[in-house]
């Protein structure tokens, strides 16, 4: 358990100790390569295929529709670049949501350089894609729509079923980066006809450095990295067996524990949201009030800046994230917050809490104990917080 109050599970999750146990033998005793033809190789092949089965079951998929990758970034690249490369003769236009994480915007930029055209569908003030607006973005040459299942930042969950309905029967593939949603909202590719789905192991308390891509049968993509032809030729490289076994164990545990865990996390979330909005004047919730991840509470506070909030909480032993530019590598505020219509100064004042397996209601109490004082102190320094605001 973390010594401090760790409320930044969207940035990193621990590996479940039971997952570590499942992984351990695959480092030292069972180190065979699935491509080898001897007994050690056969043992690895068996474990690889059993793992694939478990990860597939987690999202209601067939075993053969899952391939393992090095993580969500690779899965997103493979899904988008691999799909448009393979299907170029059918069209050259894709649609992504404005609210997507910057990594998806950067993939879109990369394919624009190869001559593809990218449209961005706007979101409402809560970060939700409007199905009506999406419909207007689709043209004859559209071949792919990529919309994240939920925002890891503001926690808003997208209407994936409605989005899939818009695309149904039009020959347009739907990709969704589901890393923020996996383990927190039910994902079943039999119910929602997604064509390509990005998963990461760490987001369900598996190891970092491993992800998966679900590819619906008859959806064709091209590999983006030539090599030895593993994973149906779509993702070359010797399989990372400890991590793959770990992701399968994590998926297995998550499938059985998720219903109760989601309720527990939502209780922490609701307690924090109620406490912050009730105790801190001029505080606001970012993201959707109802359609949001059960572990996410995202706020903004007028007249103060997020990095200052983060540093002050760090001093009190509380770990959180902010969408402020001052904490980013580019000095730009979070694009997700801006896409919701927030002003830059509002985006700078944002603070994100995400709960996870070690979170307890006492963590919420600790935040509520110190946060009002921190906000008040920073406002007392701020020229933007006028006396009349206090009144």
């Amino acid at each position: 358990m973390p010594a401090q109050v760790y409320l930044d599970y969207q940035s990193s999750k621990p590996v479940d100790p039971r997952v570590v146990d499942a992984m351990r033998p695959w480092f030292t005793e069972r180190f065979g390569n699935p491509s080898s033809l001897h007994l050690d190789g056969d043992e690895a092949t068996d474990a690889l295929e059993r793992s694939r089965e478990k990860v597939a079951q987690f999202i209601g998929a067939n075993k053969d529709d899952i391939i393992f990758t090095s993580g969500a970034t690779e899965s997103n690249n493979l899904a988008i670049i691999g799909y448009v490369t393979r299907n170029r003769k059918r069209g050259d236009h894709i649609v992504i949501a404005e609210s997507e994480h910057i990594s998806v915007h950067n993939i879109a930029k990369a394919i624009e350089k190869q001559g593809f055209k990218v449209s961005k569908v706007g979101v409402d003030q809560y970060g939700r894609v409007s199905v009506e607006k999406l419909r207007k973005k689709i043209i004859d040459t559209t071949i792919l729509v990529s919309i994240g299942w939920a925002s890891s930042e503001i926690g808003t969950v997208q209407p994936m079923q409605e989005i899939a309905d818009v695309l149904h029967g039009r020959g347009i593939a739907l990709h969704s980066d589901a890393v923020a949603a996996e383990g927190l909202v039910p994902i079943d590719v039999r119910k929602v006809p997604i064509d390509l789905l990005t998963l990461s192991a760490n987001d369900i308390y598996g190891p970092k450095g491993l992800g998966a891509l679900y590819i619906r049968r008859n959806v064709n993509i091209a590999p983006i990295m030539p090599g030895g032809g593993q994973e149906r030729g779509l993702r070359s490289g010797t399989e990372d067996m400890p991590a793959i076994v770990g992701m399968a164990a994590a998926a297995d545990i998550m499938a059985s524990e998720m219903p109760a865990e989601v309720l527990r996390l939502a209780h922490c979330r609701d307690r924090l949201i109620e406490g912050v909005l009730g105790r801190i004047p001029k505080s606001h919730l970012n993201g959707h009030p109802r359609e949001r991840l059960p572990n996410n509470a995202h706020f903004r506070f007028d007249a103060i800046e997020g990095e200052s909030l983060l540093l002050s909480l760090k001093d009190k032993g509380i770990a959180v994230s902010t969408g402020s530019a001052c904490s980013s590598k580019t000095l730009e505020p979070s694009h997700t917050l801006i896409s919701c219509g927030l002003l830059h100064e509002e985006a700078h004042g944002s603070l994100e809490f995400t709960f996870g397996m070690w979170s307890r209601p006492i963590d919420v109490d600790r935040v509520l104990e110190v946060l009002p004082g921190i906000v008040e102190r920073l406002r007392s320094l701020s020229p933007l917080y006028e006396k009349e605001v206090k009144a």
Partner: protein
Amino acid sequence: MKSTSYSEKTLDHFRNPRNVGILEGPDVAVGKVGNPVCGDLMYIYIRVSDDRIVDIKFQTFGCGSAVATSSMTTELVKGMTLDEAMKVTRNDVADALEGLPPIKMHCSNLAADALHDAIKSLREGRRGETPEPLKVCEVRSSCGLPVTKPPAIEGAEVLLGKGVYRRVEEPKAFVDKRVLIVDRGKPSVDVALDLTKHTGMVIFMSSTKEPSSKDDPRAPLKRSDVKVIYEAELIAVLGEGEVEKVRVHDLNENEDYELFIDAVVILE
């Protein structure tokens, strides 16, 4: 180096900032630098006697290093003559804090500039006055309204009726919409105030400075739910078939940025 890898000295000035507050009176000059859009805004107040800084205070909105550099600057220059204080540089402030993360050197180490602005303002005889921003746009008259006809807004004609409005007849059309109202004097202020009854996201944009007088038609906005952006101009309305976002020119920073909205009201 991480953007938040601060020295102990920087953290100390962030945790326990020296000389926080404001100074008032005829012997006080004020300097301002930064802009909330960029995430940093600082005011430095100096009281001067016999050419010496006898008292100094600051107010800062910004990140850890913005607060710490403001605090350090006030400590460094208290008691200095104005000539000595003019020689204090950003690097001196960073050195006194035992260094800053490189990425912070330019974006939030601005307090020395605010100090120099205060001294210049004093020397130009602007004691006790609200500071001018460092970079001032020229297209304004003394009453704050644009002198000439406002420049054409790219895309406004094409998207007229598709999210761009020249008049507001049916406020219900704006329910739950993110609406931007361009400053066209009192009628546009009235529209902004009225629309807050129908939607929670009303933004008012004006090329003028924030009004200091209660008689200014924009003054009532301050106590309303309208979000106001001063010293900015709408330069383009963007969207495919309907309004999706606008491009805004920040007059202070001479930079453009985008805002995501659903409707723009530009009264005739």
